[in-house]
């Protein structure tokens, strides 16, 4: 039933992954199977479980003073850029 709920082509577009027709139909059935399997979670009784976990072993917010510290240089940060100029990443135009 989930293979119908999940529209792989649409979700792939949300995930910004272009899929071939072959991938679309293959993933549709494979991910349908996985979701079908995960369907078992719907039957778990969660009435006693709080929305937010209460557990001393979970990490909590960690803050530090907002002070300037050494970090990567612009040259280092740009070293892997597919395209760059004037200390900026160059990419295709977003707004026409």
């Amino acid at each position, binding site marked *: 039933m989930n293979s119908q709920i999940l529209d792989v082509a649409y*979700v792939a577009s949300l995930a910004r992954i272009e899929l071939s027709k072959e991938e679309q139909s293959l993933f549709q059935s494979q991910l349908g199977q*996985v979701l079908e*399997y995960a369907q078992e*979670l719907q039957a778990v009784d969660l009435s006693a479980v709080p929305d937010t976990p209460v557990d001393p072993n979970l990490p909590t917010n960690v803050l530090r003073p907002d002070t300037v510290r050494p970090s990567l240089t612009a040259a280092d940060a740009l070293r892997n850029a597919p395209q760059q100029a004037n200390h900026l990443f160059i990419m295709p135009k977003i707004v026409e």
Partner: protein
Amino acid sequence: MKLHTLTIKALRARLAAKDITPAELVNDLLQRIAAIDPQIHGYLRLNPADALRQAATADISLPLGGIPIAIKDNIAVRGEGCTCASRLLEHYTSPFDATVIRKLKAVGAILLGRANMDEFAMGSSTEYSAFGRTRNPWDFARIPGGSSGGSAAVVAADEAIAALGTDTGGSIRQPAAFCGCVGLKPTYGRVSRYGAVAFASSLDQIGPLTKTVADAALLLNIISGYDELENTSRPVPVPDFTATLSAGIKGLRVGIPKEYFIDGMDAEVLAAVRAAMAWYAANGAELVDISLPNTEHAISVYYIVATAEASANLARFDGVRYGRRSPDGTDAVNTYSKTRAQGFGSEVKRRVILGTYVLSSGYYDAYYHRAQKVRQLLRRDFTEAFKQCDVILTPTSPTPAFKAGEKSDPLSMYLADIFTIAVNLAEVCGISLPCGFTANSLPIGLQLIGPHFGEARLLAAAHAYERAHEWAKRRPGFD
């Protein structure tokens, strides 16, 4: 005895006595790698000249001075590649060191080479590497496990003295079991993840793959500790894990969870694990029957939570700031979509799509939110269990290493992780160590699980078993 077969501990003694030099050790390993890695393919990249340069300046008075270590290719080393076994990062160079790398360098370790893995650590067989599969040293037709399959294979084949891997759902322990070495997944927060390329941030943890439990303790000593660059690392004390290794198992309560001894398990695996249970009982430990009642939900929870986090973490791979950018894009969004289509392999695409779906409007509550709540139940299972026992004993995997190509549909591959993933979801620690071999000479792994920050006792329990058995001495038959 050949140098490449020795442990960190033994080599430290030889180096300290000046029997050998770091350069001799590195040369010995490089020869070993040249001879057998064309068959194993455990390494993605080696830089022999750089390894020898590190050896020439290694300070052997330091805790890991002159010891060559292999690094999984998703951990950043300044000035080196970090491909995550993905085409997308094929030409990426890390501009910084991961915290664990900074720590290894500070204690004199030699970074020997970069180990193969499933792309972005998504997989259980290392077949999803974009650069070719790694072979299991015990049977080349079989997979080494994954995702840290390269790390496990190079340690098992004596191509490295030890290695670092990452474990999100079993990615250190399962390959260690399949290759016959020791693999430790520390408690979430024990080791800084800074510089490990994120897959599922609430589950990922870096850990050692080694020939012995003692070596795992030694490496854990070095890589552990709070890191102000990583907010989920925890400011808890780091004991000397090597000091308590010989604490013994007298009075140790070993929990046996009934949910981990299920139908369909391989008979030889079951027999070996039962023999290990009997050994603990006969040597002063007490076996306690326990229950982890939500175990059956672990795979569903994992493949929702992990893919959700992956879909967010991998959003950064869009071809803007680093990695390969598709030249075929017609506009910005189309460039992202084509970059990811061309850069990611099938398994990564599947997981990012699944993760996007379970987080999407209308499905978030039914999948992601529900899975997070069931995760709390899983965590509670372990909290309750550790009131009755000190460690939990299970098989690491329901089967020995499977054949390459055997698990062709994703769901059957996911089900192979059944005994390891709850440990990550509950954020506790776990270790896999050899506990026997099948009639076909395939290693079998024993998993011991400890409570949050309970590594000291976990390692002592594993060390006691290892010392009383000869499994670690057996070598793959290809030599």
